[in-house]
């Protein structure tokens, strides 16, 4: 194999090592990775705990949203019932969809990722443990508060898709809608934080030798998942911001009377909303691929085809969003394109399904609860996929769109594609976190109740839809032939609930959380998460030579536990993990990891309070929370990126790597770049909105400010870009030690100031040209984009001053420094993005 980084592959032959390890190394690892106890547990950042909290919380929301579904099924059990009043029902179905999608499905797969990935990759932890903790706590606090809106009758009631103008202030004057917009907008931020963690984790913290081609399928799925989140979520974040701006300040993005268009929301929402379905499905498919191999006791058939399918799904899913809009009278040619893309996306799904079937055929199945859930899931998912193909046909969709046929379709897909694999995974990976295995006997009952219940609930709904029953109805009229079908669906729903209840019973009887005395590899999996582990993950980090190392090397468990592989101890006496190269996973450097800290949870809680107080219009407390949250984040960062005495470390067998690096090799560089993609996507969707609205109602558009001023704005932003570069250049001129002067941070501050200046000029220019945000869709979009730029500018100013503070305290090490790197690159990006947006809005329309 050709070396990617110049690392000598012959060194791999040194493993497993033979010399006995000194005594006390394991004890030292235990001491270093030990957790705070009692209330201190809240400050824990290790993935074993955070991942578990995360999974548990997501499952709680699954139960809560399920209870809402039962309420709805009781209401619909017979026509014209009055079990749930209309307003309550409308809140229930809105919350059921919203909670299932945003508070259960996405967080659940992300949580499983945070819990399993470090073990599967044999990393000590994910690269940004405090970011995981922040993402979790933000989700926990925000999610619970959001759900609580239901108890005071303030839950959103506009549907999980929130179409304006129904959700505009004129038709939804209450704060119910604001709960959705701010609550969800904020939970999306948490999802993005998790996605960045996962991308960098998968690409940079794999065990040495685990090339992309040997990566567990779940890691592949999570990589595609995280990239999709990074691209898709900005669209809905922008959408929610625009709708909130329209509601709060009367900026007419969606109001046709002033040049807006309600369909803009649908484009922004579904550009996120359809990839969302695959965002949920792909990780579950990754879990399936791994479990199928284990229960069939043979490696997955078509590993590379499966990877190809994952990536292809990711790509194609961004080209199908408008199939939710076939009934909006779209041009024939667009309908044709979106129909074709929707058909195409079923090919990669078919590839995965047949990979699983072929694997089952190639091996010899050992029946168990996970095996039942896996086989059941294949069948359910195929049925949902087939109705998906049907609704991809435009004329057929015109009939069944927004009927119970769609309700049936989406539940088959999501239950078969995500929920059943999740239950399989619960049983399968339970042995990693629980002292006892779950009951096989109860598990069979759980499966058969859920499987039967699912068909009894949803199979009749296809027919209910054909009979003309629309979705999102709180009741229906008798004598339409719908009574019996609905009653059957209700019985089915309670059958599913009985299965879930039995699962809870199983958990109560058998699940006992542990990090080191776990039940272990009950089903005989072949991947690294089944190595013996403690809080520090594995004692030593193995060299990976195949896709199922535990099957191919029977000695590997002992060798790992005896410290015969990489990093058998703590090389620095601190928490650390090996950072490897993205393609071939060659060891590159040792990353020092932060330990427990109260700051992430503080930052998360106050971020949640910030958004919630905005919702209830407690603006003073919102400001206070925002400031506290920012201080918490800065405080947590303050402890990181310190000058270190030890520059290199021995990671086993005499292989010496540097500690902590900057630039493209550093993991921070990768995270920041991912964040830039997120910010850039918001800008791209903003640009799309701008051009779209111009195309719909050009008559309300006015001329841009004079060209001379545009040139000046551009010049200032170009200056900001140069200053941002110069700051890093100044730092790099010193060879070693702490930077003596004030140059870098002053230059960075100058860059931030130039961005602010350009923004001021840009804004006043538009005002002078006669544009006001409430006047027209043009005004609304221009000022929304400027407001977005203002947020970036504000972050830039804070970063520059923070850099100054660190510089003053002598923390600015030369020739390279992660903080400097991040600040400089952020400022450069903010200026470049501002330049692109300003030029776009000032030159089109010319």
């Amino acid at each position, binding site marked *: 194999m050709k070396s990617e980084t110049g690392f000598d592959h012959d060194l791999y032959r040194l493993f497993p090592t033979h010399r006995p390890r000194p005594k006390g190394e394991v004890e030292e690892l235990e001491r270093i990775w030990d957790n705070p106890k009692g209330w201190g547990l809240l400050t824990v950042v290790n993935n074993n705990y955070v991942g578990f909290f995360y999974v548990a919380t997501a499952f709680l929301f699954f139960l809560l949203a399920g209870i809402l579904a039962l309420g709805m099924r009781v209401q619909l059990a017979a026509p014209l019932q009055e079990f749930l009043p209309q307003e309550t029902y409308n809140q229930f179905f809105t919350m059921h969809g919203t909670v299932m999608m945003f508070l259960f499905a996405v967080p659940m797969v992300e949580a499983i990722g945070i819990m399993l990935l470090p073990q599967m990759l044999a990393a000590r932890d994910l690269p940004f443990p405090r970011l995981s903790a922040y993402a979790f706590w933000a989700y926990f606090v925000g999610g619970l508060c959001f759900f609580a809106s239901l108890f005071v009758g303030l839950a959103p009631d506009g549907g999980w898709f929130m179409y304006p103008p129904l959700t505009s202030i004129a038709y939804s004057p209450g704060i119910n809608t604001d709960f959705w917009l701010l609550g969800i907008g904020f939970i999306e931020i948490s999802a993005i934080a998790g996605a960045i963690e996962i991308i960098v984790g998968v690409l940079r913290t794999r065990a040495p030798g685990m090339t992309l081609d040997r990566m567990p399928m779940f890691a592949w799925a999570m990589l595609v998942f995280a990239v999709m989140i990074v691209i898709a979520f900005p669209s809905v974040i922008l959408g929610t911001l625009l709708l909130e701006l329209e509601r709060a300040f009367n900026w007419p993005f969606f109001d046709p009377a002033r040049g807006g268009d309600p369909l803009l929301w649908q484009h922004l929402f579904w550009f996120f909303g359809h990839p969302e379905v695959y965002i949920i499905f792909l990780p579950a498919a990754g879990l399936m691929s791994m479990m199928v191999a284990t229960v069939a006791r043979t490696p997955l058939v078509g590993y590379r085809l499966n990877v190809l*399918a994952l990536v292809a799904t990711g790509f194609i899913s961004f080209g199908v969003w408008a199939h939710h809009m076939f009934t909006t009278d779209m041009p024939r040619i667009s309908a044709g394109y979106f*129909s074709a893309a929707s058909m195409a996306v079923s090919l990669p799904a078919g590839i995965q399904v047949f990979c699983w079937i072929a694997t089952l*055929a*190639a091996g010899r199945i050992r029946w168990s609860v996970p095996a039942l859930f896996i086989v059941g899931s294949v069948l359910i998912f195929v049925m949902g996929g087939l109705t998906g193909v049907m609704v991809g046909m*435009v004329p057929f969709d015109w009939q069944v769109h927004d009927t119970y046929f769609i309700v049936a379709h989406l539940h088959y897909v999501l239950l078969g594609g995500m929920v059943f694999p999740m239950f399989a995974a619960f049983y399968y990976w339970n042995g990693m976190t629980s002292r006892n295995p779950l009951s096989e006997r109860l598990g069979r009952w759980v499966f058969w109740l859920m499987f039967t219940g699912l068909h009894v609930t949803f199979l009749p709904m296809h027919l209910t839809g054909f009979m003309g029953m629309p979705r999102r*109805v709180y009741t229906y009229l008798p004598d339409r*032939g*719908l009574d019996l079908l609905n009653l059957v669906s209700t019985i089915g729903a309670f059958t599913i609930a009985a299965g879930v209840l039995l699962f809870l019973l199983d958990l109560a009887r058998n699940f006992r959380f542990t990090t080191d005395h776990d039940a272990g590899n009950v089903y005989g999996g072949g991947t690294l998460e089944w190595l013996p582990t403690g809080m520090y993950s594995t004692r030593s980090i193995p060299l990976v030579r195949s896709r199922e190392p535990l099957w191919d090397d029977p000695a590997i468990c002992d060798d790992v536990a005896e410290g015969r592989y990489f990093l058998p101890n703590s090389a620095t006496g601190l928490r650390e993990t090996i950072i490897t190269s993205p393609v071939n996973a060659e060891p590159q450097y040792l990353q020092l990891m932060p330990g427990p800290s109260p700051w992430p949870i503080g930052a998360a809680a106050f971020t949640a309070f910030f958004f919630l107080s905005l919702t209830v219009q407690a603006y003073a407390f919102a400001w206070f929370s925002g400031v506290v949250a920012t201080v918490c984040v800065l405080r947590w960062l303050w402890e990181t990126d310190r000058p270190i005495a030890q520059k290199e470390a021995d990671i086993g067998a005499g292989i010496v790597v540097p500690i902590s690096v900057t630039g493209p090799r550093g993991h921070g560089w990768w995270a920041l770049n991912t964040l830039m993609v997120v910010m850039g996507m918001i800008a791209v969707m903003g640009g799309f909105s701008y051009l779209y609205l111009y195309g719909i109602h050009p008559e309300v558009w006015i001329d841009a400010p004079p060209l001379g001023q545009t040139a000046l704005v551009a010049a200032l932003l170009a200056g900001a870009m140069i200053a941002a570069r110069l700051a890093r250049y100044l730092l790099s001129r010193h060879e070693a030690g702490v930077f003596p002067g004030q140059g870098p941070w002053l230059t960075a501050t100058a860059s931030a100031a130039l961005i602010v200046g350009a923004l001021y000029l840009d804004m006043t220019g538009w005002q002078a040209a006669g544009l006001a945000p409430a006047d027209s869709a043009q005004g609304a979009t221009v000022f929304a984009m400027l407001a977005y730029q203002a947020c970036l500018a504000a972050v830039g100013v804070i970063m520059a001053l923070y850099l100054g503070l660190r510089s003053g305290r002598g923390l600015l090490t030369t020739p390279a420094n992660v903080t400097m790197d991040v600040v400089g690159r952020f400022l450069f990006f903010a200026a470049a993005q501002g330049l692109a947006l300003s030029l776009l809005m000032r030159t089109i329309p010319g």
Partner: protein
Amino acid sequence: MIEALWGWPPPVFDPAGPYAESVTTLAWVLLGMGVAVTAIVVAALWVALRGPDALKRKLGGERTVWIGGVAFPGVVLTALLVWGLALTASLTADITGDEMRVRVTGEMWWFRVEYLDDDGNVLVADANELHLPVGEPVVLELQSADVIHSFWVPHLSGKKDMIPGRTTLLRVQADRPGRFGGVCAEYCGGPHALMGFVAIAHGQDDFRQWLAGKARRQAASAPGGGAGRRQFMDSGCAACHRVAGTPANGLAGPDLTHVGSRQTLGAGILPNNRGTLIGWIGDSQSIKPGNRMPSYDMLSAEELEDIAIWLEQQK
């Protein structure tokens, strides 16, 4: 309750016109495909789990993935797609402009229906009922007065959204006389569940007569009088409702000029007779909670009946 317009057979499989018929064929084919593929997958799973070793060996390789996951769906989906695109094109073939036009406006939570003359002027204003001539295409100009609604008569065609700021066109045609149920299919808040209407197809001559009769009535003065009419005017009904040929000229609610000849009340949810009229006026909020008409429970039973009697005469 109104006579069953839905029920069995499911309207999607019981087309009453050319724009629904081809979709019914498509639906049968798609369902057949769905059942066949499910059967194939079940068979493959059976072989994989319980089948004889020789068959299992054949199934257990990448060839299965190429055939089952790529080649087979590729062929089936391409064929379906070509058919679907051709069908979409034929169903949306350009509207010629000579078709009769009816403007249907979705409002929270009822349908305003206006029959237009050749110049686009309103000939007859009505609500929650769409009359059509058999065997003749009719172009519906779909609009919304507030939020997004969606117009759907499954017997006649697929649905089309009614979007604020836009006019969407939908062509429908009934090939047999009859009454067909319609609903709003896009969630539009509150009592969206109770927003329906009826489409009624007449023979062509019948229809012309009907339309001419209604148009004549619009230009004439309102029949009946007495206590009911007085009560109607005094109780504030006229603020929202129009009755042609009277001072009542409110536009917020359904036009009541022809209310007596309509088949349903409350947007397709109640049969129309004196009893339901009284009930609706007196207590519309319990029948259809959240609708825009207040319950006139301050009126006495007698006063309600007077109004109902007068409204019954408005045909």
